[in-house]
Each structure stands twice: as structure tokens, then as C-alpha cells.
């Protein structure tokens, strides 16, 4: 499994005096949808940011596609970065650029300057995230919350990534929008054969999307495996997280989306 998309070994993180991660080992196999779950403050988003190199862990190593994240020359690191796309929690669209310019931005950056080609590519990406072509000229401030996420997803897909990282993809969306978004991600996952890592605490999303679940608690990966296996693990945190009344209802709903 030398070229699996993400490999985390012995990762430790400390903020000041607080230990967030105390030795995390995680291997994300290609083609899976892995959900990172955990209580608030358990360092899910931190782990996600470390996977893409936005934060450096205090100890341990992260490998992307079989190579250490920070290994090699600048060009090689850049090359590695272009193989994944990230969807930030609030979209992080460039507010000064139109939707078209936002999605075209990474493409222009790698040197695709042909205007007609760019327009076709952007149109294709917008269609992939089920947006109409006429949102292309709007500014991010003129979009609704759900549209912002879709445009951000289109931008994350612009460079044809093999790996997609989603930080709270459905947070702040109403149930209808959020199930639409889940369907969209699942369709893209099937169509493009992506590996997806998502952070979420929305159990609907989790049940509908994840092929594997990694439970993060007390600074460690408590359990990693398919949802049904996780449900059977005897642990107070998992008990509380997955077996509450609301949790059961949400999981059933999520499965129903399948």
C-alpha cells in the first residue's frame, strides 16, 4: 500500500500546554470515503489541515500518495499539492473574484491560458456540481450558502484531484440542501473514483457517505472501519456518539439516502 493517498504515522500535536493528538496512525486506502468524527475540540479539523500541510505536527509524519508531505524540491511539493482539492468549511471563495474567476483561478495558475478552453472547463465543473451556467458572472457575496459550497467544490475539483478533503461539507446547510450536497459528493465519488476524507459531526452525512469511519477521541484514533463495525465497538464515547436517540434517528435517515 505504498501509494495510498494518505498515510499518517505517530502524529502528535500540542497547542501550548494542551495535547490535541497523542500518536495518530491512519491509513486512508484509495477510493474510500473516510469520515473523521469526534467530539468538538478533538482535533478533527487540525488533523485535516495537517494532512494537506497547512499545519505542521509537533511529531510524526504525514505521507501523501506514498511520499512524505514535505519531501522533495519545491516543484515536487507543488506537484503533490495539485493532486488534492480541499473544500473549506465556509467555502473560502475569493470574494473579490467572480464565480468564473474563482473556478478558473487554479487552472490559470498552472498555465492554462486559452480562454475558450477555460470557459469550457469552468462550465463543465459548474455542471458537475449542478449549478446553472449563469451563476458564473455572479460574485461570491451574491450567492446563497449552498451555492457557495457548490462553487467551492467546483474550485476544489478544478485540477482533477485524486483526493478530496472536505471540512464540514454540510455544516450550515438546511437538511434538504445538505442531502442534495451529500448526493452530489457521492455521485462525484462514483464518477471520478475519488478518495474522499471528510470531517463532520453530522450523522446523516456520515451514514450516507462514509465507507469507513475513523473515530477520534482522547488524541487517538479509537476505532477505524466500516460504520457497522464501529457501532459494535464497546467504548463510552462511541456509545454516546452513535447510540443516543437522536443519533440513531440520524443514522437511519442517512442510510435511507443511500
Amino acid at each position, binding site marked *: 500500500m505504498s501509494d495510498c493517498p494518505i498515510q499518517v504515522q505517530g502524529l502528535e500535536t500540542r497547542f501550548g500546554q494542551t495535547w490535541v493528538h497523542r500518536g495518530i496512525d491512519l491509513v486512508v486506502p484509495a477510493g474510500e470515503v473516510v469520515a473523521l468524527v469526534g467530539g468538538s475540540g478533538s482535533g478533527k479539523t487540525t488533523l485535516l489541515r495537517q494532512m494537506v500541510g497547512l499545519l505542521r505536527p509537533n511529531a510524526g509524519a504525514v505521507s501523501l500518495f506514498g511520499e512524505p508531505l514535505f519531501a522533495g524540491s519545491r516543484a515536487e511539493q507543488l506537484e503533490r499539492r495539485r493532486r488534492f482539492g480541499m473544500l473549506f468549511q465556509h467555502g473560502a471563495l475569493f470574494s473579490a473574484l467572480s464565480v468564473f474567476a474563482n473556478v478558473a483561478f487554479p487552472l490559470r495558475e498552472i498555465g492554462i491560458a486559452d480562454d475558450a478552453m477555460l470557459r469550457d472547463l469552468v462550465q463543465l465543473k459548474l455542471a458537475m456540481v449542478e449549478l446553472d451556467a*449563469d451563476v458564473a458572472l455572479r460574485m461570491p457575496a451574491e450567492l446563497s450558502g449552498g451555492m457557495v459550497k457548490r462553487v467551492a467544490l467546483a474550485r476544489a475539483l478544478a485540477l482533477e484531484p485524486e483526493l478530496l478533503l472536505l471540512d464540514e461539507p454540510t455544516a450550515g446547510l438546511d437538511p434538504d440542501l445538505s442531502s442534495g450536497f451529500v448526493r452530489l459528493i457521492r455521485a462525484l465519488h462514483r464518477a471520478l473514483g475519488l478518495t474522499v476524507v471528510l470531517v463532520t459531526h453530522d450523522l446523516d452525512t456520515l451514514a450516507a457517505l462514509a465507507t469507513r469511519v475513523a473515530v477520534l477521541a482522547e488524541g487517538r484514533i479509537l476505532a477505524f472501519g466500516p460504520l457497522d463495525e464501529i457501532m459494535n465497538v464497546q467504548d463510552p464515547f462511541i456509545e454516546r456518539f452513535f447510540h443516543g436517540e437522536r443519533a440513531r434517528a440520524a443514522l437511519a435517515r442517512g442510510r435511507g439516502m443511500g
Partner: protein
Amino acid sequence: MSPEPRPIPVIRFEREGGAPRVVLSGDWTLRLLQPDLDALERQLEQATADCAWDLEAVSRLDSFGALLLWRSWGRQRPPGLVLPDRLEPVFARLAELGDSGLPLERGYRFLDGTEGVGRIFFKMLRNAVGFVALIGQLVIDFAHLLHTRGHWPVLETSANFYKVGVRAMPVTALVGFLIGVVLSYLSALQLRAFGADVFIVNILGLGIIRELGPVLVAVLVAGRSGSAMTAQIGVMRVTEEIDALAAMGISPYVRLVLPKVVALTLAMAPLTLWGSAVALFGGMVSANLQLDLSFDYFVNALPRAVPVANLVIGLGKGAVFGLLIALVACYFGLRVKPNTESLSANTTASVVTSITVVILVDAVFAIATRSIGLPR
């Protein structure tokens, strides 16, 4: 243990029995296509319309690769296409797309220039109206505050006073001192030629106290505190903090604008006094070195050369400038829309407008007070 490299995209032309065939193989993905894109595009162009395409050997195809082929096929499947089932969905998606294309952004037309001038005019008009509305709202909220004996934003005002007044003292002193030195040095060169050394006190005293001090300090404060106020209120607008205040029934004008306006108005008079004093001190030092004018003489001659009315005018101007700078800064801050471009545009507009307004109002002051405090 580096992973194995992926097969690079290859295009091969075959001609067996007259029918030309184009055989593609390797990974047709953005990552592998991009380094050699121009050469591949040129090769694709060589294929003629009667070519049969064979994609059987393509190991991977992403939407970029598919689009590249789609475009070279003229947005339709060429006759005699050999397409393995696993690649079918990508092209199905492209076919669905149709050829409607994205809406075009309108280009620049000849009359757009004229329209732009009109827009600027109306924008200025809107700004003027909006500015008056801001003052009106402020007065209404202030009256309401007086009437209901509500919560006075004393703490905010005091904090703002410290921020815009006390914290501005070092930079004001530095710039004032240097301007004083330069002004004194240049004047001394001229005055010595006429043997009118002692008039340096009149020139510096009148010039700095009445005119230069207030304007200099106002320009510094507009750049330093005006821009900070606009950016702060602007970001609060972006993060919906202002809406949060309004939703709690707290007037953002009373809580945010009023303390800033009051603090800057109050701070500007002492700050002007401070700036003018340091500038005069700089002039005094320079005069002492250049013209051998003693500090004693300078200090004693100053009240005789400059009637006290000038000091009142100078400090009064300072306070008015402070009021205007704060109002302009808050006005533009409240106009910020939730994007970075608007924030930068409004901060720029705030500084430029407040400096322009300061100089305009200074001219008005010069005319209005032309018969006060000037020796005849």
C-alpha cells in the same frame, strides 16, 4: 519507495488499409497532459475528420482530458469511435453539457466611458446624501440617548481617545519636529539675505500655529486613525457584528460611530497643540543653530508676534478636522460590502476623501477668519 510513475499520454496515427486511425494510450489526465499540452494539442489537430479514434488503450481519463478530445472532435462523437465502457460516463456528461456555453461578460464599449463619468457623478451625489443621512441618524440617536438617559458609551469613547490621541503622539511629534526644522532652515536662508533674522519667529509662529500644525496633524490622523476606523467598522460589517448589535436593539451609530467621532473631535485639539508645539520647538532648534537666535528670545518674542486668537483658530480647526475625519471614516466603513475588494476600495476612499475634505475646509477657514488674529 517512490510510487511507480503513471504512463504518459501518447497519440499514435495508424494507417492500415486506407482508413486512418488515431490510437490513444496512457493517462489522459490533467496532471500528465499539462506539462506537454501544446505539443499534444498540435498533434490532435493533425487528425482529419475521417479518422477513426481508438481509446481502448487509455488507462485513465479525467474531465480535462475528455474535454480536450471533445473540443478536437468538434463537440460530437466522431464516427468509428472505439470507447471502452468505463470511459462512457465522462463523455456522456460532456454531451449533456451541449454547446450553450457560459454567459459572456460584456466587453468595453465606446459609450462606457461616458457612462462611467455619469456613474461617478451619481456616486458622488449618493455619497453626499448618504453622508448627510449619517449625520442625521447620529443626531437622532444622540437625541434619543439624551431623552431616555440610556447607556452612554463612555468607556468606548475613552478607549478611542487613547487610541487616536495618545497613541498618535510619537508619530505626530516626529513629523512635526522634522517639518519645523526644515521650515526654519529654509526660511532662515532667505531671511538672512535681507538681514531680517528676527522675523523667523513671526513666520514660524503664524505659519505653524495657524495653518501648518492643524493640517499636518489632520493629514497624519486621517492616514493613521481614519483608515483604521474604516477598516474596523468595515470588517465588523463583513462579519455581521453590526447586524448583531442592531438585532439587540443597540444602535450601531451610538455604540460605534458616536464614540469615534467624539473621541477624535476631543483628541484633535490637544494633539494639534502638541504637534504645533513640537514643530515650533524644531524650528527653534534650527533657528538657534542657523541664526544664533537664543531660545529665550524666541519664547519671549512669540506671544508678541502671534496674537492668541491664532492659537484658538488653530485648535478650533483641529477639532473640526477631527470631527470630519471620523465622520468620513465611519461613513465609508459602514458602506463596506462583504468582500475584500470593497474593503480596500472603501478604506482608500476614506483616506483620500478625508484629506481632501480637510484641505477644502481649511480653505474655507482661511477665508472666514481672514480678518482675525493677523497683524496689520
